[in-house]
């Protein structure tokens, strides 16, 4: 069923490409790649750039597929985005997180988690450029600034009983502001994002928590830096602070740091052999994800993404 829908997306994209206004409006790599939530940016963090190849006066489309795998978990993601006049970006993303280790939670309480349970999450994103030009305003320190929201809806299957116990909601909306600047004379891109969120593990473990003072949204900063090696190749790193709303709850239940959430970070290389195609390979460190059932292991591994853009 999943195979058919991804083929349908590719076919849809090909159709869209035929009707898209221009396929090469932006300079290479200046639309960013896709975050795991579908917005344009680095792999983990949205940037102020508006995605797709569309520049002013144009409409563009992009689609991506991503896979990340660490010691105990894996994530498949795919999505599409529309870029309007280099001003507005609309994105739709779906994540499929293999949370098989969660079956061990049945040992704590009769949660009824079934074997091989996946957590699915859908994200609808809107981003609006507010001011600036990240690439061309090379004679000023003023960055390109955008504001965005990511509305996320989690479908945890049999892990739902765990989320109910934790008092987390099934949906939430992140609000963020990003400032991106390409220091063109240094071939260096810098991004800072401030996200207002109560998502646990980006939303995979729900939103908020039953712990007092840990239910509301908090400000979490995120940073990216990328160096352009040549027209088609960039390397970089990202760091994303996380709210860690669930640790207190686990501690109160006598589980110590079993529910601790760590910051996310990665180092990546992005290669765009053409205007329409780009690949990103990253080494990710997602820290501890429910360390109580994964023997306190840090989740590190690879992240691979391919993007088609018009």
């Amino acid at each position, binding site marked *: 069923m999943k195979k058919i829908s991804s083929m349908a997306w590719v076919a849809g994209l090909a159709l869209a490409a035929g009707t898209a206004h221009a396929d090469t409006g932006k300079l290479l790599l200046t639309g960013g790649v896709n975050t795991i939530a579908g917005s344009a940016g680095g792999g983990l963090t949205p940037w102020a750039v508006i995605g797709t190849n569309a520049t002013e*006066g144009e409409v563009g489309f992009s689609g991506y597929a991503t896979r990340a795998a660490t010691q105990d978990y894996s994530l498949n993601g795919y999505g599409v985005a529309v870029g309007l006049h280099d001003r507005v970006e609309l994105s739709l993303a779906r994540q499929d997180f293999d949370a098989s280790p969660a079956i061990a939670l049945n040992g704590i309480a009769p949660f009824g988690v079934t074997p091989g349970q996946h957590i699915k999450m859908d994200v609808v994103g809107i981003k609006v450029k507010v001011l600036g030009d990240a690439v061309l305003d090379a004679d*000023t320190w003023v960055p390109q600034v955008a504001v965005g929201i990511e509305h996320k809806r989690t479908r945890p299957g049999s892990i739902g009983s765990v989320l109910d116990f934790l008092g987390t909601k099934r949906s939430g909306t992140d609000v963020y502001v990003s400032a991106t600047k390409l220091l063109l004379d240094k071939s260096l891109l810098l991004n800072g994002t401030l996200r207002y969120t109560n998502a646990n593990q980006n939303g995979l473990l729900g939103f908020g928590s039953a712990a007092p003072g840990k239910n509301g949204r908090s400000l979490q900063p995120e940073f990216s830096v990328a160096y352009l090696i040549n027209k088609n190749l960039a390397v970089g790193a990202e760091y994303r602070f996380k709210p860690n709303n669930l640790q207190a709850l686990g501690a109160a239940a006598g589980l110590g740091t079993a529910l601790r959430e760590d910051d996310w970070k990665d180092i990546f290389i992005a290669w765009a052999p053409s205007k329409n195609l780009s690949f990103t390979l990253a080494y990710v460190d997602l820290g501890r994800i429910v360390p109580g059932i994964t023997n306190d292991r840090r989740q590190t591994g690879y992240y691979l993404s391919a993007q088609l853009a018009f």
Partner: protein
Amino acid sequence: MKHTLIALIVATCGLLAVPAMAQAPAAAAMPAAPAGLYQALGEKPGITRLMDDFVNRVVKDPRIGSHFKDTKPAALKESLTDQVCQLSGGPCKYEGADMKSAHADMDINKGHFNALVEVLQVSMDAQGIPFAQQNRLLALLAPMHRDVITVR
């Protein structure tokens, strides 16, 4: 209005050597003419070759070639060579029109501007200019988008 612009051309030429100061909106300006750029471009002979190649490509480009149909290529090459030479720290003096009046009568949008940057990148690649140096030149030219783009 046009008479005022013509009268300002001489003053603008002097300002072209310091594009940062003229354009920056209330923010600290980046330094102009980074050290070593003029040499990296091959000095006057190298810049002449670069602009020669660039104009040859640009007039044939399917996206923007039509914008140049009324332009004399030889004159454009000479004008661009002087501009880039001066911008990159060379001992030249550009005495042509400012970017705003030179492009005022044309329909230039962001897509056209980006296409021109791409053609320049291809020309710089063909001349073997290292990517890092290419970006240093582009950093000096990019802010001109405010005057060159007429359709927003």
